[in-house]
Every structure is written in structure tokens, then in C-alpha cells.
């Protein structure tokens, strides 16, 4: 007899979404000088959640000026041990408000509450704790102790608060002040983070949050008053940013797209490899820049792996992001859903075989069933372009050398996975894979102590770990 799980929704009552939000500049919420507000929606229901201000050039000026004042008068000259106190305080408040932040993240982004509760928010707190520890030990990190000044930071919608933490924690620890622009579709947790800064008595101007769309981001990174640009997002926008800062004294770090290979050798622990494949591509609906979106499986076990993978995918629970038993939530926006559909359509046209997990998708909201394509070759667009959705391209290989060749044959190089029970093969493969992160017998594992970043078109610079401080220190 079937075991039907009753709905187990996490309560929304812990969040208090205001009807409208201003910009967070110089320690206070202020209205935008000009520009129409934008709406942020719940991707699981298409309901409008709030109106959020769009920062124009005058607002960005104000924010950068506030950050400059705070840098020169307070933060840049504050002893590291004192800065650490604020960062520790922020980390603790994030933990205290973890449930609220997790629920809000799931509402605004569409990701399952299990992930926002167990992955995103704990990692946010961990990043602040970790970099708080570095603030008074910069002399031992090896990158000097002089901050850069004002950092302009633009982050994506896939891990809204976590990407904020990756950007803000090391910047503040090193003595910089920041102006951060959250993604257009997911501004709400960044705005609650602004409240947390107030709650932590962070000096005004150290953190400024300017909401808006692409224009706001462009204005911010092109602003003459910023010393440093940090961006996470698409390779296309990353290129524009690289062009716009060329010839200026601004320092840049870019964390861009990926098309990671997840390589399964025939001697892998198959059941766990299947879990790793699922986690690699269906975690966060595949909205992960380091997602294992290309499965390279050794031909001798390909059929068995695919059988097991399909059986496992049939158990994925797709639906209400706030249900504690949901594995795969909503696609973040109509625009992203359209892109996934287009690329999946191209996959079929190009002759790859499509298989989607049998699941009933809700009528309202943006949804895409977990999908795999078999019979994919290196020449297919779905094997080359980043889909940024729950779509896996399956390729096969016969020899280890062929696996490495195919894995590296991409313009990207953010991450890779190796599945084998043989330790020597892990080391052999890791040495040859041109990717910033290589996971062995696991995937999508993150830790503040571990640096993260790309090769080739996946960007440059590292975030996380001791290495992550380099991006925010002048030497």
C-alpha cells in the first residue's frame, strides 16, 4: 500500500513582508530618488509579494558616497578585532532569525524549505563566523592588511542570501565597505539582512543595499567611486563588466557560469553515485552555477546507472517550496522557465532522447519536471550551454582519458565531480580536470573554509577560505 505523505507546510507566520521596501543607504531605509518601483513575486504562486525600489544613478551616488564616508571615517580604520565583533554579531543574529530567513528565501526564490533551512541559511551564518575570525588575523593571511575601499557587489538570484554572505563577509572582514545589489527577482532576504545590520548596530554606510534591475547593477559597477567590483552571474554580463572596468584602477572578481562534468567510473559506488548525480543537477532546481549538468558515465555501467537514476528521479517530490518534504521547488522566474524550455526543446530537435520524471506539476507558478537527455554528444547545444535548470545531459565514455578530454572540452571550468572507489584514479583525474572545484564521491558541497571559483569563462578570483581575502586586500 502506498505511503502518501500528508502536506507538511512550514508556517509563513514567521515572516513579515512589508508591502513596499526602500533602499538601504547609510544605515537607513530611504525612498528612491527617481524610478518606478519593481515587483517581486512568489514563483510558486505568481503572487506579488512586495514592491521594491529601483535605484537610479542618483541613488547609487548616495550609496557609494555613504560607503566612502563609512570607509574613511569608521570602518577602514577600525581595528580588526573590533570589526570582528560586528561580524560575529551578524552571524549570531542570522542564526537567531534562521527560520524567518529560510522561509522568506523559499517564498521569494522558490527553493525548497529543506534546502534553505538546511543548506543556505546555515552556510550564511558559517561564512560570517568564518570571516569574523579572519578580521584580526589578516597579517597572517598573506595578502597584506590594507583594504581596497568601497566594493560594488552584484549577486544572482539562485542563492540570494548565501551569495550576499560570500560577498559581504570577506569584504567587511578585510576593512572594506560595500554597496550590494541583490538580484531583481530575489531582493527580500537582502533587505532583511539590512535590518540585521541595523540590529547589530553596524555603523551606517558600511553596508548599503540598492535594489534594482540590470541598469542599477551597471550604474553601480561603472561608478567612478568604487574600488572593487565583485560579480556573480552569467558569463555574458561578466564580459560586459570586464569591459567596463578595463582601463580603470578597479579590481574585479567574477564568478560566472558553468557546465560541470560529473564523471562516473565503472567501479563507483553506484547507489551513492546516483545520489550524487541527483544532488548535482536537481539541487536548487539546477539553478546552480557549479551544477553537474553533464553526466559522463562509463559505457560499461551506463545502462545500470541510467536505470537507477530514473528510478531515483521518480521519487523526487516536486512542488510547494514551503512543504518540508519537497525536493524540487519552483523555477525562479517566467523568464528562466522560458529559457529552460527553449533549450530543452533544442535538445529534442537535435535528436537527444528526453525523459522526465513522472510528476504532477502545480497549475500556477513556474515549474519544470526533473529531466534527463540521453544520447547527447559534445556537439549538442544542451551539452555546451548552461541551462541553469533541472536538466541533465548524459554522455558516455570508454576510457579515463576520454572522460577527461570530454570534461575539459567546454568553455567553462567551474566544477567537476569524480565517482570511483579507486583513490589513485581520483588524484589522477583531479590533476587533469580544469575546474576550480573538483568533488570526489560527493557533489555540491560548500564550506566557508574552501575557496570557490572558476577557470576559463567561469570567471576569475576565488571566494571563500583564506584565498577569498585576496580579492578584498590591496597587498
Amino acid at each position: 500500500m502506498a505511503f502518501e505523505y500528508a502536506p507538511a507546510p512550514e508556517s509563513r507566520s514567521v515572516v513579515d513582508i512589508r508591502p513596499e521596501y526602500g533602499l538601504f543607504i547609510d544605515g537607513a531605509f530611504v525612498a528612491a530618488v527617481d524610478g518606478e518601483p519593481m515587483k517581486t513575486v512568489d514563483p510558486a504562486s505568481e503572487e506579488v509579494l512586495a514592491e521594491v525600489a529601483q535605484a537610479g544613478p542618483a541613488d547609487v551616488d548616495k550609496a557609494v558616497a555613504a560607503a566612502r564616508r563609512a570607509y574613511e571615517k569608521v570602518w577602514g580604520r577600525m581595528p580588526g578585532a573590533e570589526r570582528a565583533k560586528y561580524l560575529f554579531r551578524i552571524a549570531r543574529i542570522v542564526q537567531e532569525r534562521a527560520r524567518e530567513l529560510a522561509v522568506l528565501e523559499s517564498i521569494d526564490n522558490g527553493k525548497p524549505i529543506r534546502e534553505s533551512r538546511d543548506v543556505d541559511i546555515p552556510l550564511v551564518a558559517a561564512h560570517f563566523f568564518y570571516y569574523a575570525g579572519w578580521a584580526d588575523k589578516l597579517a597572517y593571511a598573506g595578502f597584506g592588511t590594507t583594504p581596497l575601499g568601497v566594493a560594488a557587489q552584484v549577486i544572482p538570484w539562485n542563492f540570494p542570501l548565501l551569495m550576499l554572505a560570500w560577498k559581504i563577509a570577506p569584504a567587511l572582514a578585510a576593512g572594506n565597505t560595500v554597496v550590494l545589489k541583490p538580484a531583481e527577482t530575489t531582493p527580500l532576504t537582502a533587505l532583511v539582512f539590512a535590518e540585521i545590520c541595523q540590529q547589530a548596530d553596524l555603523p551606517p554606510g558600511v553596508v548599503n543595499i540598492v535594489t534594482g534591475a540590470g541598469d542599477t547593477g551597471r550604474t553601480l559597477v561603472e561608478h567612478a567611486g568604487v574600488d572593487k567590483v565583485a560579480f556573480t552571474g552569467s558569463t555574458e554580463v561578466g564580459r560586459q563588466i570586464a569591459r567596463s572596468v578595463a582601463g580603470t584602477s578597479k579590481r574585479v572578481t567574477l564568478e560566472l557560469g558553468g557546465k560541470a562534468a560529473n564523471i562516473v567510473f565503472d567501479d563507483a559506488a553506484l547507489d551513492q553515485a546516483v545520489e550524487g548525480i541527483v544532488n548535482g543537477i536537481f539541487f536548487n532546481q539546477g539553478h546552480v552555477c557549479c551544477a553537474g549538468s553533464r553526466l559522463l558515465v562509463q559505457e560499461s555501467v551506463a545502462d545500470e546507472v541510467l536505470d537507477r537514476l530514473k528510478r531515483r528521479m521518480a521519487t523526487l517530490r516536486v512542488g510547494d517550496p514551503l512543504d518540508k518534504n519537497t525536493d524540487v521547488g519552483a523555477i525562479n522566474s517566467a523568464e528562466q522557465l522560458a529559457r529552460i524550455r527553449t533549450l530543452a526543446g533544442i535538445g529534442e530537435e537535435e535528436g537527444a532522447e528526453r525523459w522526465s520524471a513522472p510528476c504532477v506539476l502545480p497549475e500556477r507558478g513556474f515549474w519544470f519536471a526533473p529531466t534527463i537527455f540521453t544520447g547527447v554528444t559534445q556537439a549538442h547545444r544542451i551539452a555546451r550551454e548552461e541551462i541553469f535548470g533541472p536538466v541533465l545531459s548524459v554522455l558516455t565514455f570508454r576510457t579515463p582519458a576520454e572522460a577527461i578530454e570530454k570534461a575539459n572540452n567546454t568553455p567553462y571550468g567551474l566544477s567537476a565531480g569524480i565517482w570511483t572507489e579507486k583513490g589513485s584514479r581520483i588524484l589522477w583525474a583531479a590533476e587533469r580536470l580544469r575546474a576550480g572545484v573538483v568533488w570526489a564521491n560527493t557533489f555540491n558541497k560548500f564550506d566557508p573554509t574552501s575557496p570557490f571559483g572558476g577557470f576559463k569563462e567561469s570567471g576569475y578570483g576565488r571566494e571563500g577560505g583564506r584565498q577569498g581575502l585576496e580579492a578584498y586586500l590591496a597587498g
Partner: protein
Amino acid sequence: METHEAERLAAELAGSPEALRTFLSGLPGVDQVGAEQRAATLATRSIKTTAKQWALDLAVRMVDLTTLEGADTPGKVRALCAKAMRPDPADPGCPPVAAVCVYPTLVPTAVAQLRGSGVHVASVATAFPSGQAPLAVKLDDVRAAVAAGADEVDMVIDRGAFLAGRYEEVFRQIVAVKEACGDAHLKVILETGELVTYDNVRRASWLAMLAGGDFIKTSTGKVAPAATLPVTLVMLEAVRDFRDRTGRQVGVKPAGGIRTAKDAIRYLVLINETVGEDWLDPRWFRFGASSLLNDLLMQRAKMATGRYAGPDYFTLD
């Protein structure tokens, strides 16, 4: 037709220790970190309201209500049997448990009490819990239990032989015990706490299934760690793969250390999302437990009344 394949495979491997070793070593490995992470993720499933009611009743029906103490008496076993048939005297809707599990000397008492009730009588045998006795003694132990009326036998494997790599010896012993069981169902206790690695658990599971075990069981309850979620996950994957390969379905019984309804529901989730509903049945999944039943009853009563009753409202075993 279906069991033919299991028999064919067993016959092919039984003749040669090398073939059996090669086969068991050729099973895909188990990655410890990955298996434990999967089990931990499934343990976060939130089972509420109607799903919880359903799961609690199913869990009660899967309990092998167990007493395996040197101090066991016929009186205690009679009380246990009464409880097995009507776990909650205040609620006639409460289903009976699957079986009562006792030492061989107490089987006649249990048989007399449970006759006609549908509750099975399980007996541990084969020099339980250590298994450290000559094969002839173990087989006599089994025959005595079956002759006394046990319709389920819980045997222990020879862990010493298994860990020494003498797989064929273990195989032959299980075959012999199975034969001594006659019509009684054979549960093979792997004592996973002594096998230590998940690779060993998977190999021992296959060995027991190939040798004809009807159930594979984690533990005697006398060795720590006893049943855990990841060990049970590995065993469930083994019975699933064995059925895919041979067509024969084998049951799974975690035993030892499962004390709360919450734990039991986690196991049901594990079944549901690993092997599916075919195993969500007392014929194919059992809990070897004693104190678990009272917590299940307490939670059932809470679901029905909205209030928790104190432990004095449920009988001690």
C-alpha cells in the same frame, strides 16, 4: 520461474569458494559518507496527520515484540503474547503486532497463547547471540524451536568465518539452517555492528539471500551499534537489487535500538523511498523491538485524543 534464477545463481556460486568470493567482491561498493548522508536527508521527512496515523498503525503491525533475557519467564511471555494480540486494550481498533520473538525454551508458552491469533511465533536459534557453537548444536537448536511450534526462526551468522573471508562456510551453514527450518521462515541476523563496514553489510546481505534466507536482519540487539538507518538503507538496496536480479523478494528486519515512533516512521520513509511500497508490509519488513511498541501506542492515542497519556496508561512488557 522466478525463484529458479535465485536457485541457479546460488548453485553456480555454492560449488566454488572462489566463485562466491569473486561474486561478492564484485558487488558495487558502498560509499560511507554518501550512504549516511542519504539516510540523514530522508530522516528529515516530515510525516504529519493522516500520513502519521497510517504509518503508526503499519509500524505496530510490523513489530516483532521481543524479549530475549536470561530472566525471561513463562509468565512474562504470556503477558507479552496478550499484549501482542491486543496492544492497546482501550482501543479495539489497534492492530496486533506481527510476531512475538523469544528464546526456544519459551516457544511452547508463546505458541499456546497465540494459537489462532494470526500473530507469529519467532524464535532465535543457532546459539544466539554469539553463534559460537558447533554447527550440529546450532541445527539442533533450530529443530527444537521449530518442533516446539516456532514458525519463524531468527538465526545468527558466523561472523568469525565471514570476517575471515570464509564466505562459503557461512553460506553452507545458512543453507543447512534453512533446511532445518522446514516450513518456518528464516531470518538471517548479520550482526552489522560486528561487520563494521557497509561493504561487508552488502556482501553479507547477498550471501544470506543467495543461501535462501527469507529475511535479512541487522542485529541481535546484544551488540552496539545495532540497527541504524544507513545500515538498513544498504540492506534495502540489497533486497531491491536481489529481486531485480533473481525475481525473489526478501524481507528486511532492523532490530535493536529502535525505541521511538519517530524512529520507526523514519524507517518507513526509508522503505518508501528506496524500495517502494512492495516492502511496506509486515510480510516484508519487521521491527525487532520491545519498548518501541509502547511509544507507538502513546503516539496513536495522542493522535486520537489530542493529548499525551502518561506511561502508566500503557502496559509494561
